[in-house]
């Protein structure tokens, strides 16, 4: 009697285990193509290069002995009674040559990541140098840095350089060299067997995509929960007060005040969309609508609230939810139209 119960329980547990594990395995590790990641790679690399170029416009004011937040102040802020782990070598040096060298390298790494040249190497370098700069720039960072660093970090894992990249082209052109020289394969992160394939699929692409998707869900969930605490998001006036902030304004949208109901609907739509994003983005039939609202909200932030870089990077992060095959078809269609 006892042994039969155990056997039944055992077989039941195994069935549950197996189906759950298969689902888990498919969710995280089913090989997928890199087209969505390639779009993110191009955008993130370009943004990293741009971010560092902007730092370099006024570098002496941001780093070095005459920085607005100098090294002594930085240490005061980070080495207080509560232990801080924001270590960066840029806070240990006052040499402008080192700082210029670092920023130039970061900018170069961003460009190389965008064009997909030795992608694996430069993705790690672009992420690391940007992280070091971010740790140094206490007090001057905002959402853009959070999103860019998040994407750059996850792009170190997969093979976004296998499509639409210099690496991909080199790999096809010099297939034999890639087969022979291991350093080429390590630097680019493209294995010999992927050379010449139109849609190379790899598990690490899926894994990195899932990490970006889940991280994005956390961002939207807590962003939405934060808004739920504010009464302006409930009484429908938050949209007005966002566009009435002179420091943010890049285009005069105060005329929307004439349409108080529409403004209020937009506020509530933003609130409910943000809170429910983490649930609505997964089912196939709600995903396009969720992505559509994301495009409108972030497009609005980019165009009207003066944060074009942040709005753009949020849209780019949402590309993680677009299947690679759709992106490939879309780009293929555009190419054919141009030919």
């Amino acid at each position, binding site marked *: 009697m006892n042994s039969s119960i*155990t056997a039944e*329980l055992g*077989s039941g*547990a195994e069935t549950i285990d*197996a189906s759950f594990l298969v689902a888990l395995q498919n969710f*995280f*590790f089913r*090989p997928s193509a890199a087209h969505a990641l390639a779009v993110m790679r191009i955008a993130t690399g370009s943004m990293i290069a741009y971010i560092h170029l*902007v730092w370099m416009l*006024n570098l002496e*004011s941001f780093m070095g002995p*005459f920085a*607005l*937040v*100098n090294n002594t*102040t930085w240490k005061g802020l980070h080495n*207080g*009674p509560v232990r*801080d*782990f924001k270590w960066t070598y840029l806070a240990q040096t006052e040499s402008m040559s080192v700082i210029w060298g670092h920023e130039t390298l970061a900018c170069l790494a961003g460009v190389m990541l965008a064009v997909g040249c030795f992608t694996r190497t430069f993705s790690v370098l672009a992420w690391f140098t940007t*992280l070091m700069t971010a740790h140094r*720039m*206490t*007090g001057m960072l905002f959402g*853009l*840095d959070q999103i860019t660093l998040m994407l750059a970090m996850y792009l170190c894992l997969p093979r976004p350089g296998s499509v639409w990249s210099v690496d991909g082209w080199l790999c096809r052109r010099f297939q034999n060299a890639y087969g022979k020289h291991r350093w080429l394969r390590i630097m680019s992160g493209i*294995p010999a*067997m992927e050379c010449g*394939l139109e*849609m*190379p*699929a*790899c598990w*690490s692409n899926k*894994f990195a995509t899932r990490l970006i998707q*889940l991280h994005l869900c*956390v*961002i939207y969930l*807590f*962003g939405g*929960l*934060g808004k739920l*605490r*504010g*009464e*302006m*998001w409930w009484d429908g006036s*938050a949209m007005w*007060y*966002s566009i*009435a*902030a*002179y420091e943010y*304004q890049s285009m005069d949208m105060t005329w929307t*005040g*004439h349409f*108080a109901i529409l403004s209020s609907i937009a506020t509530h739509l933003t609130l409910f969309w943000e809170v429910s994003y983490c649930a609505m983005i997964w089912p196939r039939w709600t995903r396009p609508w969720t992505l559509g609202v994301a495009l409108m909200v972030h497009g609005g932030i980019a165009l009207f609230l*003066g*944060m*074009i870089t942040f709005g753009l990077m949020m849209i780019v992060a949402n590309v993680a939810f677009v299947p690679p095959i759709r992106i490939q078809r879309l780009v293929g269609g555009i190419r054919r139209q141009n030919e």
Partner: protein
Amino acid sequence: MFLATHHALRTSGACHPIAPTAVTGWLKTIVILYGDYSHLTHTEKLMPSAALPYLPKLPKQPKLSKSEPPAIRCPTSIQYFLLFGFLIHFLGVLAEPLRFFSRSEIRTGPEFAWLSDTMKPYSQWLYLNHGYFFFAPNPGPGHLIQCKLSASSADEPSGQESSQVLLLPDRNEHWPRLLYHRYFMLSEFYTNRYAPEQVTQELKKDLEFMQTWASDKELYDLIQSSIVSSLKHSRNVEKVKLRRIERLLPDSQQVLKEGWSLNDPRLTSLLSETMIEATAIEPIDELPNKASAGASR
């Protein structure tokens, strides 16, 4: 129930008998992530049992159809390490917002405080420690730094002190927009770090408050002197005076019916540097110009 399931799993042969060390497992994971894939089969052969003990064996993934391209799969033995790594990482991502949201005036949720403290080295260094409060809980007023720059009187032929006023951020001066936004964030940071020069007699009796105030004041002074010395150097001036300015948000009535612009002087006010005068907020006619109180060095 647990023992029965455990026993069934053990006897069904779905477990790996050999348990390699976590370090070896992680090293192998790194090899798989960054390694040379032309030797993938060989690598896979090397670690057929590189999973933790007592965990059921992950099933092999079904073959893709012939129309699908050839794919690189993750060795099943590595998947456990990656899932474990993902779990740790995800806790790192969640730790800070959970702590942030569970904070009240009385305390912070103890389990989230513990999680946040535990994950701190990881989440802080990887720059994952954010609350994600974008325009939340409510859109608020903007803060600016007004900097009065004075050149040495000796340089002036008339012997008088010449001065100019700089605003951080300034739309006309700070371009591109990202650069403007950096200065805007700095002015918000400076205001957030504000600690009054003096506190009321009543507060002086509260020792705990005074201790916090003293350390906050020290940091605020440090930031202030850092900005001042940077501006002195970049603008080549002798004296720099900083003042904090707040720009309130107008309601739709003020803008659409009364014709106020978003940068109407009536919306801006000078913020006091001391708690004692905190009630007397002076309006500013024009930006950047008049104001009396302020910090100078």
